[in-house]
């Protein structure tokens, strides 16, 4: 009976998704104006895209709606009634739920506990696991996600952690979902599933605000689109009249064209740089692969298929129980990251927040961290050299939004990704292992990162690219390995069709 009540409550609340109007929203950090006089309104049940370059202020706008930060100026109305949202709690009480770019789950708790986090208080002090798990089962049914409620969230791949975030918002009966780049961490199939879920939610009356850098995805999904540029509102219009090109023009403010870089042929004499033989760790089995000088090898597969773990094992970051890695004929000491780095391997990890960046430290320090000895003398950092080097490399990845001395946490998500990339470009590596190279960057920066990868390869770097974005893998790689359940199960060449690779990755 209690469940029925809950259900009724949810249906009732969904039908009453409010019209949201924000006017004159402004936000500054020090003298940096991040948002300036932003005004827009979103109709109930609308799917509303928010687009703009890295650092345009999209996340800031969503965070203001979700109560994570407070605007300096401006007002907000729900169905014409002024409201003041100063905390996430306020936002939730108005049915607004923020699913942030950086996920905010508690890693030590189970999926179930995370989903119902903060809802316990509504039920007195006694927890009722049964009711929760029934409710959970229904949420899974609604969304089509496959999650073990007892799994510890910290052990899940990022893609599934995000599903947990979405369930958490739904469990709170959110009427307005603010999603900051939800698809950035998902692979094709999951993406489709998510877009499907979003559409279904919108049909039942939920309003969805979504930030994304994928133009086609946005155009195929949203009813209306808002474009921000340098913190200013440019347009809010029906998506129907727009094309990817017209959106980009408005985002960037000028005419641009982004060519897929030409991936040059690998010379037939190019020697093998990377030779991995039967590498086995807790997460991957019998990984054998070779990459030649100048070659780009792509690894495709589902989230959790062992792609990232393959890179970690090669880099010596995960303990291996068998097999070995050779770089230019020299065996790397198993489990030694330092030896791997010495041999010229670089790893750009999957998660910039957990594995990539030291958020509290300045941008420049982060970029210089993995190559400290190269710019030091007798253990002292040569600050001037470091500044110059960092400046150059920041420019080459188009890093914007903060001075090199500011904490990396102050950068927008896409710019953090660029900083992460810049870190391993200071000393061009012999082997580049890169996991989701363009997660969260805007299309201009993405094109730039792609051409950097291709250029590195052209200069002789052996590259292994992991990406959930099939187009990225297909567009960049000379050869493609497909992984499933921790093993390499198929191999394709550059001319493989999208469908072939998809089928081999996703079908059992």
């Amino acid at each position, binding site marked *: 009976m209690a469940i029925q009540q809950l259900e009724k409550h949810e249906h009732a609340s969904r039908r009453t998704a409010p019209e949201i109007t924000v006017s004159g929203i402004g936000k*500054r*950090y*020090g*003298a*940096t*104006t991040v948002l300036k006089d932003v005004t827009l309104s979103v109709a109930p049940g609308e799917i509303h895209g928010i687009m703009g370059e890295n*650092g345009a202020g999209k996340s800031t706008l969503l965070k203001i709606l979700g109560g*994570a*930060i*407070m605007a300096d100026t401006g007002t907000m109305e729900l169905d014409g009634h002024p409201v003041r949202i100063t905390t996430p709690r306020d936002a939730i009480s108005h049915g607004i739920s923020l699913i942030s770019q950086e996920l905010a789950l508690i890693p030590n708790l189970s999926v179930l506990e995370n989903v119902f986090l903060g809802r316990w208080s509504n039920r007195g002090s006694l927890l009722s696991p049964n009711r929760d798990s029934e409710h959970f089962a229904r949420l899974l049914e609604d969304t089509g996600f496959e999650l073990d409620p007892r799994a510890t969230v910290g052990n899940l791949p990022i893609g599934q952690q995000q599903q947990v975030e979405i369930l958490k918002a739904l469990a709170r009966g959110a009427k307005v979902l603010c999603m900051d780049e939800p698809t950035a961490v998902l692979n094709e199939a999951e993406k489709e599933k998510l877009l499907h879920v979003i559409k279904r939610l919108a049909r039942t009356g939920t309003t969805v605000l979504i930030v994304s850098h994928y133009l086609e995805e946005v155009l195929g999904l949203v009813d209306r689109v808002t474009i921000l540029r*340098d913190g200013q509102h440019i347009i809010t219009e029906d998506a129907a009249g727009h094309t990817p090109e017209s959106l980009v023009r408005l985002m*960037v*403010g*000028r005419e641009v064209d982004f060519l897929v870089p030409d991936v040059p042929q690998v010379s037939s004499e190019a020697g093998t740089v990377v030779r991995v033989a039967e590498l086995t760790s807790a997460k991957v089995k019998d990984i054998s692969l070779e990459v030649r000088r100048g070659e780009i090898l792509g690894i495709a597969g589902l989230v959790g298929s062992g792609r990232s773990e393959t890179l970690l094992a090669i*880099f010596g*970051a995960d303990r291996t129980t068998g097999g070995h890695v050779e770089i230019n004929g020299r065996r790397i000491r198993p489990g030694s*990251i*330092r030896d791997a*780095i010495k041999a010229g391997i670089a*790893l750009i*990890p999957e998660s910039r927040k*957990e*594995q*990539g*960046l*030291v*958020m*509290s*430290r300045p941008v420049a*320090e982060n970029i*210089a*961290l*993995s190559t*400290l*000895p190269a710019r*030091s003398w007798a*253990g*002292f*950092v040569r*600050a001037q050299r470091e500044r110059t080097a960092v400046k150059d490399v920041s420019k080459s990845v188009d890093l*914007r*939004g*903060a*001075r090199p001395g*500011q*904490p990396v*946490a*102050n950068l927008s998500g896409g710019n953090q990704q660029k900083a992460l990339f810049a*870190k391993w470009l200071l000393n061009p590596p012999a082997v580049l292992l890169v996991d989701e190279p363009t997660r969260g960057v805007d299309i201009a920066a993405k094109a730039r990162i792609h051409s950097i990868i291709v250029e590195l390869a052209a200069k002789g770097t052996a590259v292994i690219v992991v990406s959930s974005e099939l187009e990225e893998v297909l567009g960049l790689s000379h050869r493609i390995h497909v992984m499933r359940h921790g093993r390499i199960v198929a191999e394709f060449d550059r001319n493989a069709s999208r469908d072939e690779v998809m089928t081999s990755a996703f079908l059992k």
Partner: protein
Amino acid sequence: MTTTTVAVPSTAGKKFNLNLKDFGIVFGLAAIMLFLALNTGTFLTGRNFINLFDQAAVVGLLAAAATLCIISGVFDLSSTATLAVSSISGVMLTQHFGVAAGFFGALLVGALLGTVTGLIVVSTKVNSFIGTLAVSIIYRGLAIVITGGAIVAPLPEQLASFQTWTWPSLFGLTAGSVLMLAMTIVLGIVLWRTTFGRRIYAVGGNQEAARLSGIRTGSIHVAVFAISGLCSAMAGMILASRAGSAQPAMAIGIELTAIAAVVIGGTSILGGQGAMWRAFVGVMILTVISNGFNLLHWDTTYQQVVTGVLILVAVAADGLFFRKSTR
């Protein structure tokens, strides 16, 4: 395209904000000093300043080491137990081999015990708070075993030179104060300018990112504990030199005063943030307050209340600023 329009205005504004926040604690110290200068006739005398620095020497050394530890993401609660064992060893070595050998031996024992503490914490992967607490109990026990629970002192004819650290030296400051200032500066430069310092910040800020950048996080922690042991031995040398003896229960609880000073200075207990000058300012605030209570003949019981309130204010401010800067 608009790189500059975004970046340029941020320069001035951010810097201004940062400065205010950064140096708030310095204004705090200045305010207390001004108050004492106006309300006592004795505060602003050279003699009192020599006294102030001498009083700050022991906590200053421990706080300098604690700064390295806390920034790298660990606590060292064993520092004063190490202090006791090393100064006892120093005194015993003095009895047999002379004062110089005694001091040298004390430093060696301190660094060694620090290394052992580090190895224990790193290899067992226990939380450093609990790990070093356990280690401190072991070391205190060790001190009792060595001395049989008694006070140890150098031979009477050695006493004069054993008390070197209380002698006036540079600018009339005691040798102990000079040692503390020198260590603060050296370790400050290590943090600020060396690759080792960078690694300390990185390990404390995000251990996994540091590891994936090729930093041996375990080695960094062991090194930091070793330095902590060395500083403890120096502090112990000064204390023993002052008292003319050493004993197993010496300096109990001062490790917490040192951590308090670090926190009051504004170094974040979360790791990855902070600076050496902050520890120094924190130590001076505590010392000046205690000095003030003496000069004003106030009841020193209230001194503890004031210190406690200060710590709370500092930590709360840290949390507030932290939240503000990430919001």
